[in-house]
């Protein structure tokens, strides 16, 4: 019997709703499901929403009866917001969030580095926006609830996964006891401590770093802008690093490293938290500021990934698939990219439009992304929390030099999460004109957003399938292209056609963007009419042509959606 707490979690700023558990006895006998998503964090819910967008139903299982405890992930990148826009929650994130683009690093009372993240006029979203995770989960849950294809089940804890031939049987425990649930596919989005990963005895590759960090959320009134603050080797915590972030609702995140040897239990004692937070506030000139603790937790830096995310009928995603360091806001932000990718890859396989090869592509691309992040985040981690005396000595030398020597200061800039480019994806077209373009997003790159007008951006018009951007001022798409498009659509391939550059609606296109000033064309590096881009359902580029013809369009579509083999 699984009995999650029915007591609302404590919070100063967030009122937790305790949901009713889903009970099998209150529902009719169930058929085998197409997809069961285990876990209702950012990865699980975005996967379910993307699947639904492609018409694929899913069951989402949450072991708890409420959203997660504490603010957890608070910094969301521009690409995350673009993904959240695709699943319909970006407006709510924007409404409640604190956008920012500057970061400051301090050493011995001096600001030794200022990070300025670029903000292009063509971007709808800021480089980063701060929103507490409970709100983000609430927005995603509301979107799931409003979607008839998503069957959301609170208080359902997966206790066992048995892989059969082409499907899996889950044992799901509830407050009235367990029930069995069959599904063709199981998405393991059950977080960093994934019980499914442990039960399947899957090994992760990579490194774990020693040293613990405390995260504490405090309510305090500080007259400071929304910018990231980082303090190195302060007097009250010698050799260690402190980070501060402003959160909505009068909350500040204080994140500090513990001296070697101190246990998480010692660090989380109220008197220990109080002494350190008081010391930090005093150091930044706010000694004696009145504050209240909301939530605290401890983490350690790890750079680990599964080498393959697909295991039979079980697909791992988000933190269940990899554990990434907090520096560079890589947890939830990577999870969104994983989930967006998984959603469309899996949907097209479930719909029989593609074979398992497409899932192998998903795994290869996202494992590649995880490895890239591990490589980059490893550098940040070695600076923030030096793993050996040598690394500590170098870090300390850089701190010392940074007071007078500009050349070392960029080392303070730990790289922020960014979308992985699928440069060598198997879905990229071999016979297109990718290499002939002088600018614009290349093979595998995420899309370049473009401002089209007041509150109107290119990405507002994309998604839900493949998108073909065709640059023309003619009244109609060439017949031969229209024929190819009709043929693939008749086979079920979701393909939207957007004509760019004509003042009137273009026959054969679903939408026409006039692009009167040619700005979109210029950002995409298209020199003349007849050029085109093919974007995948995650908006990454998989083909582009200076002059598109029917033969090469067909070839690109065939490459982008490998035909099914035999798997039910």
């Amino acid at each position, binding site marked *: 019997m699984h009995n999650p707490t029915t007591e609302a979690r404590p919070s100063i700023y967030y009122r937790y709703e305790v949901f009713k558990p889903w009970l099998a006895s209150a529902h009719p006998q169930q058929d085998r499901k197409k997809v069961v998503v285990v876990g209702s964090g950012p990865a699980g819910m975005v996967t379910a929403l993307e699947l639904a967008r492609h018409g694929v139903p899913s069951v989402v299982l949450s072991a708890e009866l409420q959203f997660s405890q504490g603010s957890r992930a608070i910094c969301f990148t521009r690409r995350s917001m673009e993904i959240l826009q695709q699943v319909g929650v970006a407006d709510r994130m924007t409404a409640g969030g604190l956008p920012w683009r500057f970061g400051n690093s301090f050493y011995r009372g001096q600001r030794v580095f200022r990070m300025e993240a670029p903000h292009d006029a063509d971007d709808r979203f800021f480089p980063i926006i701060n929103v507490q995770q409970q709100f983000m989960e609430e927005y995603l849950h509301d979107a799931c609830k409003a979607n008839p294809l998503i069957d959301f089940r609170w208080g359902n804890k997966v206790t066992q996964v048995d892989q059969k031939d082409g499907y899996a049987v889950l044992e799901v425990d509830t407050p009235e006891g367990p029930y069995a649930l069959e599904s063709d596919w199981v998405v393991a989005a059950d977080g960093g401590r994934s019980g499914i990963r442990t039960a399947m005895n899957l090994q992760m590759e990579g490194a774990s770093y020693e040293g613990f960090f405390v995260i504490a959320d405090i309510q305090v009134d500080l007259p400071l802008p929304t910018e990231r603050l980082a303090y190195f080797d302060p007097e009250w915590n010698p050799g260690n690093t402190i980070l501060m972030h402003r959160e909505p609702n009068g909350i500040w995140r204080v994140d500090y490293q513990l001296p070697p040897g101190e246990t998480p239990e010692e660090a989380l004692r109220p008197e220990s938290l109080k002494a350190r937070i008081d010391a930090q506030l005093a150091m930044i000139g706010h000694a004696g500021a009145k504050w209240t603790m909301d939530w605290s937790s401890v983490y350690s830096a790890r750079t680990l990934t599964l080498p393959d995310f697909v295991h039979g009928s079980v697909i791992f995603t988000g933190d269940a698939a990899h554990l990434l360091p907090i520096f560079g806001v890589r947890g939830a932000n990577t999870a969104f990219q994983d989930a967006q990718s998984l959603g469309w890859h899996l949907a097209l396989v479930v719909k029989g439009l593609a074979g398992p090869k497409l899932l192998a592509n998903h795994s290869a691309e996202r494992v590649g992304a995880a490895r890239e992040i591990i490589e980059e985040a490893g550098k940040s981690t070695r600076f923030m929390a030096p793993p050996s005396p040598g690394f500590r*000595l*170098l870090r300390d*030398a*850089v701190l*010392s030099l940074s007071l007078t*020597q500009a050349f*070392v200061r960029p080392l303070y800039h730990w790289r922020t999460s960014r979308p992985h480019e699928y440069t060598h994806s198997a879905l990229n077209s071999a016979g297109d004109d990718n290499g002939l373009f002088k600018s614009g997003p290349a093979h595998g790159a995420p899309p370049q957003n473009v401002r089209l007008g007041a509150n109107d951006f290119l990405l507002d018009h994309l998604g839900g399938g493949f998108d073909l951007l065709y640059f023309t001022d003619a009244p109609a798409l060439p017949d031969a292209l229209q024929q190819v498009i009709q043929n693939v659509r008749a086979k079920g391939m979701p393909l939207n056609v957007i004509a760019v550059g004509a003042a009137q609606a273009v026959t054969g296109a679903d939408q026409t963007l006039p692009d009167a000033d040619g700005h979109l064309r210029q950002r995409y590096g298209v020199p003349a009419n007849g050029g085109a881009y093919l974007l995948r359902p995650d908006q990454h580029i998989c083909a582009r042509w200076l002059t598109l013809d029917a033969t090469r369009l067909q070839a690109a579509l065939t490459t982008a959606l490998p035909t099914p083999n035999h798997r039910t």
Partner: protein
Amino acid sequence: MLTPRRSAASAPTNTCATTNIVGAEAPTYFTMTDKALSIGGLESVYDALATAIDQAGADKAQLFLVKLALLNANALADEHLFQAQITAALQDL
């Protein structure tokens, strides 16, 4: 005792101690530059470095030397040459 190197052109006859100790690959880097310290210059560096290490004190000498190495590396502007120097310095510790 170290022998100062001269120009790259005279390198074949100039098998100095510096090139011998860094092994087979490294000499490429050492012949890439025709800059070298004179004996007098080297002696000045020797004294200045020793004095500075003493000035930094035992507990800060390491930190001082790493700072100095980073400044030198930046002035050198050649990560491969710096790697060769690391290899050379790690010899015979």
